[in-house]
C-alpha cells in the first residue's frame, strides 16, 4: 500500500521518534476543537524544520498521498481533521522564536509557536502581537495564519492578515517559497492567509509587533435588554469612536457565566456590554467620557470602570469564560460563528429569539458586537431524543439569517469540513470555481488538506492552452509584429 511504503521512506528523512504509527497514539490526533468529527490519521509526523516538511511533502507527491497540517488542534471547524489515507503533519516541535527585531517592529517565528508566546517574548520592551484569539495560550501562529484568526481586539487592530509581513511556506509540491508583503505583483501572502491549509504548509512567520498602548480603559455597562445594548453600540460607532473592543452578552450567557465563574455582573441585567478603549492617554480620556454618556443615553442602568489590570480582568472574566460556562447550564451545546452587518444585529437577534422559541431550543448570545460577529451558543440536552437534530437545525438557520442579511457564515472559525456545505449558499458556482483556480495554481493534485473549504473539489487538469513564445496569429502569417 502506498501509505506503508511512504511511512518507511518518511522515517528515513525525519529524526528518530518523529513518525507515529502506534494506533493508540494516533487516536490523540483524531479531532480538533470540533470533536464530533473524528478520523484516525494514517500516520502522524513531527518534523523539526521546513526542510523536513518539504521532504515529507515531496514524498506525499511521489505516492499521491494527501497531507493535513495541524498546529494545536484548537480549530473549531474541523480544519485539521486528518485522513485515514493520509499524513498528518504536526508542528508541535517547531516552537522557536527565531528573531525579535524591535527596531523593525517584527519577529520571526516557527509555525508551532503559540500566539501568546510572541507577546510574552516582547512585552517587557513595550510591544505585543495584536491579534488575540481567546485560545491564544494554546493555539499556534501557523493555525492563526491558516484561519486568519482574530480576537476581541480585531475591531480596531484587524486580523492575522494585517499583522503578517512574510511567510515561509512549503508548497504542495514540496518547494520552500517566501511570500513577502513587499513583493510586487499579486498579494499571494494575503491570499494564503486564511486558506485553511489548502495552499501549502506554513513553516515560518514574520509577524508585525505593535507598541503597547499608552492607556487602556475598560467599561462594563449593564442594560435591561439587548436592544438598549445594541443601540449603545450603534451610537458609539456612529459617534466616530473605534474602540479596541466592544463585546456583548445576553441574559442567558450572563447567567451561565455567573454559574461558572461568579463574575458578579450587575444583577438584573438583560445584556452587558464591555467596551475597551486604548491609545494615547488624552484621546482615550476624551473618548471614554463620550462612551459613558452614550451608554447612559441608551439606557444603561449601571456603569463600572476598571481602575487597573485586576479590575479589567474581573470585567473580562465573565466574557472569556462564556463558552465553557454554558456547560453549567446545559449538558451539550453548539458554538456557532456567523457575521451580520452591525446595523442588522437587532433584527437578527429578534429572529434568533423566534427560532429558539419555535424549536424549543435555548440560545445564549455572546458576540463581538463592534463587527457584528455572533457566537450564538445553541444549547440542548443530548439525552433527549431529537434535541441534537433540533439544535443543529437552529444552528444552521442562524447561518441562513447571516447570509440573508448580507453577512458571512464564518467570522473567525473558518469553513473547514463543518461549513463547506454552506459555501454554495453564500457564493455562486462561478465564485467557488474561481477561488479554486487559486487552489489549482498552488496545488494542482489536490493533496494539501483536501475535502476542506470547498463542497465540490475541482479537477484541475493541465493548464489549458498555455502559450509561450510566438503568438499563433503571427505564426500563421495573419499578423506581424514590428
Amino acid at each position, binding site marked *: 500500500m502506498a501509505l506503508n511504503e511512504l511511512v518507511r521512506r518518511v522515517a528515513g528523512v525525519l529524526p528518530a521518534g518523529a513518525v507515529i504509527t502506534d494506533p493508540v497514539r494516533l487516536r490523540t490526533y483524531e479531532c480538533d476543537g470540533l470533536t464530533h468529527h473524528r478520523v484516525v490519521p494514517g500516520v502522524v509526523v513531527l518534523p523539526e524544520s521546513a526542510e523536513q516538511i518539504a521532504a515529507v511533502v515531496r514524498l506525499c507527491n511521489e505516492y499521491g498521498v494527501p497531507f493535513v497540517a495541524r498546529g494545536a488542534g484548537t480549530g473549531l471547524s474541523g480544519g485539521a481533521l486528518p485522513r485515514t489515507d493520509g499524513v498528518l503533519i504536526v508542528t508541535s516541535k517547531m516552537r522557536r522564536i527565531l528573531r525579535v527585531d524591535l527596531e523593525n517592529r517584527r519577529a520571526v517565528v516557527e509555525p508551532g509557536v503559540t500566539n501568546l508566546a510572541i507577546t510574552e517574548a516582547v512585552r517587557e520592551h513595550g510591544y505585543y502581537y495584536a491579534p488575540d484569539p481567546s485560545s491564544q495560550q494554546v493555539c499556534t501562529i501557523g493555525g492563526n495564519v491558516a484561519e486568519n484568526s482574530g480576537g476581541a481586539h480585531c475591531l480596531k487592530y484587524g486580523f492575522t492578515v494585517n499583522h503578517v509581513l512574510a511567510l515561509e511556506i512549503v508548497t504542495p509540491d514540496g518547494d520552500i517559497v517566501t511570500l513577502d508583503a513587499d513583493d510586487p505583483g499579486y498579494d499571494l501572502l494575503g491570499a494564503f492567509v486564511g486558506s485553511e491549509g489548502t495552499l501549502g504548509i506554513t513553516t515560518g512567520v514574520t509577524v508585525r509587533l505593535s507598541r503597547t498602548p499608552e492607556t487602556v480603559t475598560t467599561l462594563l455597562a449593564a442594560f435591561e435588554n439587548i436592544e438598549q445594548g445594541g443601540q449603545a453600540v450603534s451610537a458609539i460607532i456612529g459617534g466616530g469612536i473605534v474602540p479596541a473592543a466592544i463585546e456583548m452578552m445576553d441574559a442567558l450567557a450572563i447567567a451561565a457565566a455567573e454559574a461558572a465563574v461568579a463574575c458578579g455582573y450587575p444583577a438584573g441585567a438583560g445584556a452587558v456590554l464591555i467596551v475597551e478603549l486604548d491609545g494615547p492617554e488624552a484621546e482615550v480620556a476624551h473618548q471614554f467620557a463620550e462612551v459613558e454618556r452614550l451608554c447612559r443615553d441608551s439606557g444603561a442602568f449601571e456603569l463600572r470602570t476598571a481602575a487597573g489590570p485586576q479590575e479589567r480582568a474581573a470585567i473580562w472574566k465573565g466574557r472569556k469564560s462564556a463558552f465553557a460556562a454554558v456547560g453549567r447550564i446545559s449538558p451539550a451545546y453548539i458554538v456557532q460563528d456567523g457575521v*451580520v452587518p452591525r446595523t442588522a444585529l437587532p433584527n437578527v437577534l429578534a429572529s434568533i429569539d423566534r427560532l429558539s422559541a419555535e424549536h424549543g431550543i435555548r440560545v445564549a448570545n455572546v458576540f463581538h458586537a463592534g463587527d457584528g460577529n455572533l457566537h450564538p451558543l445553541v444549547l440542548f440536552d443530548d439525552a433527549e431524543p431529537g434535541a441534537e437534530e433540533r439544535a443543529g437545525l437552529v444552528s444552521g438557520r442562524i447561518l441562513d439569517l447571516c447570509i440573508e442579511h448580507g453577512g458571512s457564515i464564518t467570522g473567525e472559525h473558518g469553513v473547514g469540513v463543518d461549513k463547506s456545505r454552506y459555501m454554495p449558499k*453564500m457564493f455562486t458556482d462561478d465564485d467557488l470555481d474561481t477561488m479554486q483556480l487559486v487552489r489549482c495554481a498552488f496545488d494542482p493534485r489536490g493533496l494539501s488538506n483536501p475535502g476542506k*473549504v470547498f463542497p465540490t473539489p475541482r479537477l484541475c487538469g493541465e493548464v489549458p492552452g498555455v502559450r509561450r513564445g510566438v503568438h499563433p496569429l503571427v505564426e500563421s502569417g495573419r499578423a506581424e509584429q514590428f
Partner: protein
Amino acid sequence: MDAPHNTPRPGADEAPRGPGADEAMGGLSADEALRATGVTIREAGSGDAVAGVMPRWVALPESTEEVAALMRVSAGHDLAVVPVGGGTRLHWGNPPERCDLLVDTCCLNEIPEHASGDLVVRVQAGVTMESLAETLAARGQELALDVPVGGSTVGGVLATAVAGPRRLRYGTARDLLIGITVVLADGTIARSGGKVVKNVAGYDLGKLFTGSYGTLGIITEAVFRLHPITPARRWITAGLPAPRTAATGSEGSGSPVGPGTVEGSGFPVSPRAVSVALAASQAEPSAVELDWLAPSGVLTVSALVEGVAAEGRAAAVRDLLGGTAGESGTTGESGEWPVGSYGVAEGDKAPDWWGVLPGEEVLLELRVPPSGVDGALRAVARRGLPARVRGSLASAVLQVALPPEIGGPELAAFVSGVRGDVGPLGGRLTVLAAPPEQAAPVDRWGPVGALPLMRRVKERFDPDRRMSPGRLAGGI
C-alpha cells in the same frame, strides 16, 4: 523583447476561428461582435495608447454584466484586453505585449451602497477617489487611503497597489478592501469577501487582484471598510541637516537605536533614528513622511497626528523632532517650511509635497525594513544623480524620481547600484514608471521570490494570455 505592434492586426477583424471561437457569435467579426454586445464602442485614437501600444477599440461598459459580455467576445476572437481607469498610471509597468481592446471603466461610476452605520461602502471600479471621498465625507466618513489628486479610480488604485502617507496607521488598499467583484478573461463573474469586515469564508480574491496591473481580470466593484473622519489633524514638520559625506558614501552600520547619534551614516542627524523615535512614540502618528533632494539637500520630515487629542500629541511629536533635529544649522534649502534654523513647524495644513509623487516620468519605489532607511538613502545619494526622494519614512517605502532625460544605461546603472546596496539590508527597488526606450535595459521588478507561483496563478486565470499580457514581473 519583441516590439509591440501598434496597428490593428489584420486577423482581428475577421470571423472567429478555431476551438476558442464561440458558436453563438454566428460568424460575426470581432468588430461586429463587440458592437452586438450593446456596449458603447469607439475606435481607438492616438490618446488611447497603452505605454506606446495602440489598441484597436475602446469600450465603455456600464455594468459588471457588460464587462462580462465584452470579455466573452474577446475570448471568442482572441482579443488582448487592457483595463483603464483614470489613465493616470497606465504607463506604469512593462508595455503590454499586445492590446486590441481597452476597457475603460469610466462609466462604472456608481456608488451603489454606503452603509454608514456599518462603516462600509460598495463602489464601482470606475469611481474616482475624489468623488468617493466627497460622497463619504457627506456622512463624516472616509476611506483611509490618501486621495491622490487627479482622476485616479478605485480600480486603478487597487490594481497598482500604491498607498500614500497614512499607510503607517491604516495599512494599504489590501487592508481596507473587504469584498471584490471581478470579471475574468473568459467572462466569468466572480465575487469574494462580502459586506462585513470580519469574514473568513473562502479565499480572498481581493488580495490576489491588488497589485495585479490588469493581468488577472477586470475589477468591477469593490467593498471597503471605512473610518470616521478624524476631528483634527496636525502636521509637525522639521528639517534635518543635509548629509555631509553622502555623495562619497562613507560606510557605516547606521546609528544605534535612539535619536541623535549617527556614526558614519553621512547624515548629521540620522533619519533612521528620527523614524525609530517617532514610530515608538505614544503620540501614535498616522504618518511620518520624508522629502529629500538627493544627494545633498536638506531632508524634510513631517509627521501627521490625527484624532481628538491631536494638539497634545502634536506637542509630544514636536518635542521629539526638536530633540532630534536640534536647533543647529543654517537655513533650509527651500522655502517649503518656515525655518530659521532646523527648527520645527506645526500647523493644520500638510506641507505642499505631502502625498504627492516626487515625479512622473522616471519613478522608482524603494522599500527596506525601517532600520535600513539610512542605508537606502545613502544608496541613492552614492549614485550622485539629482534624485527626489519622498515617501513614508516610518514604513520605509520611498518613491524616487530621477531626471526625465536620464539615459537607459544611466538608469540601468542606478538601478543595479541601488539594488546592490539595499539587497543586503533586505530592501528592494522597483521601477514604477520609465519610458520603454529608457527602461529597455532594466529589469523593472528585480528578483521576486514568489514569481513561479504568481506565474501559475496567471496561467490558471488567463491561460490564453489575453489580460494585459506581459505587464508584470517575469512577463506575467
